[in-house]
C-alpha cells in the first residue's frame, strides 16, 4: 500500500494545516510518511500544494501520481487533475469552488456547509476536509481526535468541541458518499513514528548539541530553523537574535562563540552571500561557528520558495584567503539531526567554521523516523573554563601546538586575557607582519588541521547492490529519490546509490574504496538538482574521476521518482 494525497489551493487557504494534520495522523497510525510542499512567493492567492505520501513500507520521496486530490479551488482541479491515477478521487466543495464536476472521480463534499452545520466557521471547513479524507480511507477518527485535543487545548473546550464535530461530520459524510472508494489501509506493525522536516531536524540537532545562541535574518527557506529555536528559547535557555542583516548575524554568532557558548547562524544563498567575509573571520580568529545554508534557486533572488542544489561550490570556496572548513549535506531529516550535532562537535574541536548545506526541498519535507538516538550524540565541551584554566601559568589563545589546535579559553574565567585578531597574528593574538609567523599560522590553521579533520569525515553511503553495474551518485537532498529508485530498479539491474552527506574535506577512499566501486561499474550517473553538475566537478577536482553521465534538474523543482527513473532508463537501456 502506497498512497499519495495532494492538497491544492491558494496561499492562505490552510493547505499546511490540512496537510500537517493528516500527515501527523498517518505517522501516529504507524505509517511511513513523506510530505513535501510546493508554494509560491506570496502570502495569499496563487497556487500552492502540499503532498503526502504514506505507506506501510518506507517512503522517502514524492511520486507523480495522486490517489486523492483535495482541491480547495478550481485552479487546483485544472492543474492536478491529470496527475490522478485511475481509480483516484478528487474531493472538493462544489459550492465554494463554484462549479460541479460530473466525472466519477469527483466527490463533492460541502466542507463549508458541513462546518457551518457543526457550528464552525470557514477555518473549520479544513477540519471537515481532514475528517473526510480519513473517512474515504476507511480510517477511524481516534488519532485525529487526539490531535485536535492537543492543538485546541489552549483555545478552550468550545472550540475543541466544534472542531471535533466538524471532523466527525466530514468523516461521516465521506463514508456515506464514497462507498465506491477502493482504498484499503492495513494496520501496519511498528510505530508510531516521529514526523519531522529538515529545518526542524537542524534546529533539534542544534538544541541537542548545546547550541545557546542563534542569530539570523529571516530568509526563506531557512527561517524555519530560527523559528524552531525561538519556540524553544524560553524553556531551554537559548538566545535567538534577529539581526538587522546577515552580516550582523554571523558577526553576532562569532561574538557569542568567542565569549564562550556554542553559536550558530543560518540563511539561504543570498543571505549567506553576505556572510562570506564573516566566514573568513571565523577561520582567521579560530572561532567555532556552525552555519546552515538552506539553498534555493538562484542567481540573486531567483525562485525564493523553490529548491535547488546550486550553492555547493560557492559554499565550498566562500571567503577570501585559504582556510579549513567542513561542509556537511544531509540527505534526510535524520541525517540533518545527527550531522548538525557533528557540525557543532567539529566546529568546536577544530575551532573552525562548519557549514550545513540543506535546501528548500529537504527543509520543508517531512519524513517519518522510528526514533532518534541521543546516545549517538557527541557533546564534549572543548573550551577551557573554571578549573582547567586556573592551573595555567600563561595563556596564549593561538598557541602553536603539535596538532595546530590551541587551547580555547572562556574570557573572564581566569586571570588570563584572551586575544584574537582578524589580521595575521602571533600566538598571543597580536597583529604581526613577519614571514615566519605567518607561515606557522597558516600551517597551524590550514595545513595541519585539514588532514586531521579529514579523518573525521565518513565515506559516502553505498545502498543497493554491493557489486553494482549501475551506480547513481548524489549528495544532500536527493538521497530519498535515489534510494527509492534503487529499490525500484534493483530487480532488473545490479544497481546502487552512492550518497555523499559529508562533503568536505572530501572523504578519503581508505576506509571504503568508493572509487573502486565507480570504476568497476558499467554506468555511473551523477544526479544533481542543479544545472552544471557541481558535485561531479568537485569529484573530478578531488579524485580525477569523471562520471559517465549526468542527470540535472534546474527548474526549481525536486526530482520525482518517475521522472528520475525515466531519465535513468534512457542511459541504462543503452548499456
Amino acid at each position: 500500500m502506497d498512497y499519495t494525497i495532494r492538497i491544492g489551493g491558494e496561499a492562505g487557504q490552510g493547505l499546511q494545516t490540512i496537510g500537517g494534520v493528516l500527515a501527523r495522523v498517518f505517522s501516529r497510525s504507524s505509517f511511513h510518511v513523506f510530505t513535501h510542499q510546493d508554494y509560491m512567493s506570496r502570502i495569499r492567492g496563487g497556487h500552492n500544494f502540499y503532498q503526502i505520501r504514506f505507506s506501510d513500507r518506507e517512503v522517502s520521496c514524492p511520486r507523480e501520481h495522486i490517489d486523492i486530490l483535495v482541491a480547495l479551488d478550481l485552479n487546483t482541479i485544472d492543474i492536478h487533475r491529470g496527475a490522478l491515477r485511475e481509480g483516484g478521487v478528487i474531493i472538493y466543495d462544489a459550492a465554494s469552488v463554484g462549479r460541479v464536476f460530473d466525472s466519477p472521480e469527483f466527490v463533492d463534499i460541502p466542507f463549508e456547509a458541513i462546518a457551518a452545520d457543526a457550528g464552525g466557521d470557514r477555518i473549520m471547513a479544513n477540519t471537515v476536509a481532514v475528517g473526510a479524507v480519513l473517512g474515504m480511507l476507511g480510517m477511524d477518527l481516534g488519532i485525529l481526535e487526539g490531535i485536535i485535543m492537543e492543538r485546541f487545548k489552549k483555545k478552550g473546550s468550545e472550540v475543541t468541541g466544534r472542531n471535533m464535530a466538524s471532523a466527525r461530520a466530514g468523516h461521516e459524510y465521506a463514508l456515506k458518499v464514497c462507498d465506491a472508494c477502493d482504498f484499503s489501509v492495513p494496520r501496519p506493525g511498528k510505530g508510531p513514528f516521529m514526523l519531522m522536516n529538515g529545518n526542524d531536524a537542524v534546529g533539534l540537532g542544534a538544541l541537542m548539541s548545546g547550541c545557546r545562541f542563534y542569530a539570523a535574518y529571516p530568509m526563506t527557506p531557512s527561517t524555519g530553523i530560527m523559528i524552531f529555536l525561538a519556540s524553544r528559547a524560553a524553556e531551554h535557555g537559548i538566545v535567538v537574535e534577529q539581526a538587522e542583516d546577515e552580516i550582523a548575524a554571523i558577526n553576532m554568532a562569532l561574538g557569542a562563540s568567542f565569549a564562550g557558548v556554542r553559536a550558530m547562524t543560518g540563511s539561504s544563498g543570498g543571505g549567506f552571500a553576505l556572510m562570506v567575509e564573516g566566514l573568513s573571520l571565523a577561520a582567521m580568529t579560530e572561532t567555532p561557528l556552525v552555519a546552515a545554508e538552506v539553498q534555493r534557486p538562484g542567481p540573486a533572488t531567483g525562485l525564493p520558495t523553490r529548491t535547488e542544489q546550486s550553492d555547493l561550490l560557492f559554499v565550498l570556496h566562500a571567503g577570501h584567503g585559504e582556510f579549513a572548513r567542513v561542509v556537511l549535506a544531509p540527505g534526510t531529516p535524520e541525517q540533518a539531526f545527527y550531522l548538525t550535532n557533528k557540525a557543532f562537535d567539529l566546529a568546536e574541536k577544530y575551532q573552525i567554521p562548519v557549514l550545513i548545506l540543506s535546501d528548500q526541498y529537504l527543509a520543508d519535507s517531512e519524513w517519518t523516523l522510528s526514533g532518534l538516538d541521543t546516545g549517538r550524540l557527541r557533546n564534549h565541551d572543548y573550551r577551557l573554563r573554571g578549573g582547567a584554566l586556573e592551573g595555567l601559568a600563561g595563556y596564549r589563545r593561538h598557541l602553536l601546538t603539535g596538532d595546530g589546535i590551541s587551547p580555547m579559553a572562556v574570557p573572564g574565567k581566569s586571570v588570563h586575557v584572551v586575544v584574537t585578531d582578524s589580521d595575521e597574528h602571533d600566538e598571543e593574538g597580536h597583529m604581526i607582519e613577519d614571514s615566519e609567523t605567518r607561515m606557522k599560522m597558516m600551517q597551524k590553521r590550514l595545513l595541519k588541521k585539514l588532514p586531521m579533520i579529514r579523518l573525521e569525515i565518513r565515506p559516502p553511503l553505498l545502498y543497493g547492490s554491493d557489486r553494482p553495474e549501475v551506480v547513481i551518485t548524489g549528495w544532500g537532498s536527493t538521497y530519498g529519490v535515489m534510494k527509492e529508485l534503487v529499490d525500484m530498479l534493483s530487480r532488473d539491474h545490479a544497481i546502487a546509490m552512492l550518497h555523499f552527506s559529508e562533503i568536505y574535506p572530501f572523504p578519503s577512499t581508505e576506509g571504503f574504496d568508493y572509487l573502486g566501486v565507480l570504476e568497476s561499474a558499467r554506468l555511473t550517473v551523477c544526479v544533481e538538482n542543479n544545472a552544471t553538475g557541481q558535485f561531479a566537478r568537485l569529484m573530478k577536482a578531488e579524485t580525477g574521476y569523471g562520471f559517465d553521465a549526468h542527470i540535472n534538474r534546474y527548474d526549481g523543482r525536486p526530482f520525482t521518482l518517475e521522472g528520475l527513473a525515466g531519465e535513468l532508463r534512457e542511459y541504462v537501456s543503452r548499456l
Partner: protein
Amino acid sequence: MSTFQDYEGITPAWCPGCGNFAILKALKETLVGLGIEPHGITIVSGIGQAAKLPHYMRCNTFNGLHGRTLPVATGMRLANHTMPVIAVAGDGDCYGEGGNHLLHAVRRNVNVKLFVHDNQVYGLTKGQASPTTMEGVVTKTQPFGSLSEPLNPLALAVALDCSLVARGFAGDTDLLKELMKEAIEHRGFALLDILQPCVTFNKVNTYRWYSERVYRIGDDHDPFDRTEAFRRALEWGERIPTGIIYRNTRPTLEERIPVIKDAPLIDRPFSVDRVEGELQGFY
C-alpha cells in the same frame, strides 16, 4: 585592583603626535581608576588606526572586521552579560562600513560602550574622506571635495534615542576620562564620539582647529531633554560642545531577555537529558 602596567600592550604603530595616544592613555587610566582588571573587560574593534588600540593595551580582545564591531560586541553581551564590553572604532569603521549596525545596536540598547575615534578621515587607508569629513575637503578620491553633508553622529544617536550620547576630545583628557567612566558605568548603550586629530592626513581638523572650538557643556544643559539634546547636537562649526549631550533610562536588551535573567548563557550547564523531552513533540 589593577595598575597602569597591567594594561601594557605592544608598541603602538601610530604616527608620532597622533590623537590616538591620548585616547589610549585615558582609557587605560579610566579602567585602572574603575578597578577593572584586564581579564575582566573585553574590547572589540574593527579595522583602522583606532581599531588597533586593543593591541596597544592588554585585555580580552576581539579585533574583527572593518565595520563589524557592534554585532560582535552584541553577541558577546548576549552570551555573557557579566563581561563589560567596549567597542572601539574609527569614524569610517563605525559610521561608514558599519553604519547599519550602529542604528540597530542603539535601538536594542545593548549594554555596550562605543568609543569612536573620530578623526574625520580614513587614516589607515591614507586619507580618503570619511562620513564625518567636512564638506569641500579635497582628497585623492574626492577630487571635487567631499560632496556629502558630514554625518552628525550625535544628532543621529539622539534621533535613535540612544541611551547615552557624549562627545570627547583627545586634547581634553580630563573630560575624556570622565566621559569614559560615565559611559562604562552607564546602564545601556553609550556612544562616545571622540574628536581625534589625525596629524598625517587631516590638515583641516587639527589640534588647533579643535582646541579653538570645543567647549565643555555646562550644567545648564539637561541631557534628559531630547529636543534640547538635539539642538545641542546640531552645534558644530564655531563652537563644538563636548560632554554629555543626551541620556535616558531605557532598559537594556540584556535585562529584557528572560532567558538570561538568572545567569549568563556561558554559565548555563548543558546536558542532553534536559532537552531529551523535545523528541516527544515530534511523535
